[in-house]
């Protein structure tokens, strides 16, 4: 039985450590905030210029001057600080953020990531994604293992334009968890009732299988 979006987010939350500064991308990664273990101090960065991002506001308390990188209204916390976009990406580029969790269209077995463009079709732009994957210490991708048409998203090589080269450290999909170390992909965990054979069938990338799976 494959993981739900919530279960993927919950699994990603296991990558958090006390004292971490973390940037969460739009979509499923945002849900990770709901699974921060009790008593663990994690500070969320929003790359539009905020450290210490709080939950959504109560209705009627939305502040147009207080949004996250997904343009959603949010709130501040006691530890919050605000800064400019240049300072924000200085923080990102300078390697001060411990963990970035974000979505992907494609990931290659060497850690290449594509998540910003479909030539001739979609021109939204990369936003801060290229900066995040280049600068943040550890990059975890959460994505559906296959596209809507069933085609694999974990590939030998990405065919979409890249967001970053060799930048992904871990992939959490609905079927399991992969690690990329020194350019090699390893399946390290399976979702309940998912078999190695299932994963192989649904994956284009070459990967090794961790002991005990």
């Amino acid at each position, binding site marked *: 039985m494959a993981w739900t979006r919530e279960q993927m987010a919950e699994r990603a939350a296991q990558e958090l450590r006390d004292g971490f500064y973390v940037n969460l991308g739009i979509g499923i990664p945002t849900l990770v905030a709901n699974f921060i273990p009790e008593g663990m101090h994690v500070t969320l960065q929003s790359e539009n*210029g905020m450290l210490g991002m709080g939950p959504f506001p109560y209705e009627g308390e939305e502040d147009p*001057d207080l949004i996250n990188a997904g*343009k959603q209204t949010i709130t501040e916390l006691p530890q919050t600080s*605000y800064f*400019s976009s240049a300072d924000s990406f*200085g923080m990102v*580029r300078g390697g001060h953020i411990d963990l970035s969790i974000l979505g992907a269209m494609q990931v290659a077995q060497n850690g290449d990531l594509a998540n910003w463009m479909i030539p001739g079709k979609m021109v939204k732009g*990369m936003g801060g994604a*290229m900066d995040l994957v280049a600068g943040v210490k550890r990059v975890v991708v959460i994505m559906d293992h296959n596209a809507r048409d069933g085609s694999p998203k974990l590939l030998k090589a990405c065919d979409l334009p890249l967001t970053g080269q060799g930048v992904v450290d871990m992939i959490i999909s609905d079927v399991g968890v992969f690690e990329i170390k020194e350019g090699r992909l390893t399946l390290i965990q399976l979702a309940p009732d998912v078999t190695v054979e299932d994963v192989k069938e649904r994956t284009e990338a070459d990967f090794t299988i961790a002991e005990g799976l």
Partner: protein
Amino acid sequence: MQKVFTDAASALEGLLFDDMTIMAGGFGLCGIPENLIMALHDSGTTGITAISNNAGVDDWGLGLLLQTRQIKKMISSYVGENKEFERQYLSGELELEFNPQGTLAERCRAGGAGIPAFYTKTGVGTLVAEGKEHKDFNGETYIMETGLVADVSLVKAWKGDTEGNLIYRKTARNFNPMMATAGKVTVAEVEELVEPGVLDPDHIHTPGIFVQRIIVGQHEKRIEQRTTRPRPATADA
């Protein structure tokens, strides 16, 4: 040396010309110089190269100038909320240069700080790196990005004083401080204009040297994604 102008139109008088380069602060619709953009729209200036993280939405912010085809080229990191933009770009009517958001922010800062170019890891091995100088430092590859300046920078602040000192509020700060430094002329709109000495000099985000003209604006401050959580039931509810 009077920096204070009565309205957006007069604050832009004498500064605008066709084929000029404009920087406009803001992230999404947050902290955008909405009054000045409206005045730029009304001025009819065309052939504009607009440097701005986003392109507004269809009927607000820089989206207004896309509707009227006043913009020739955008330098942005993300334009996902604008259908007209997507249409003009895919049909080849609009030039578009995508910059990673941090690279864009840093290019504006560099332009304002007299730094013609810098190196970054961001974008190495991607479309963004094509045609750019590559250089290795400590065994890692970086690309060279250049500083950006504008003929006119439009910024939005929360409070300002008559000397041009500015303070931004929460995440409405975003690109405004760097763009304020990178305009040959910088025009600021604020919600509240005060006399010198009212703003604490340790709290000023943009020193007045960067601001040549300033107005008080009327701010609609639209919200793009109104997200809320349920209010907890209270005992006395």
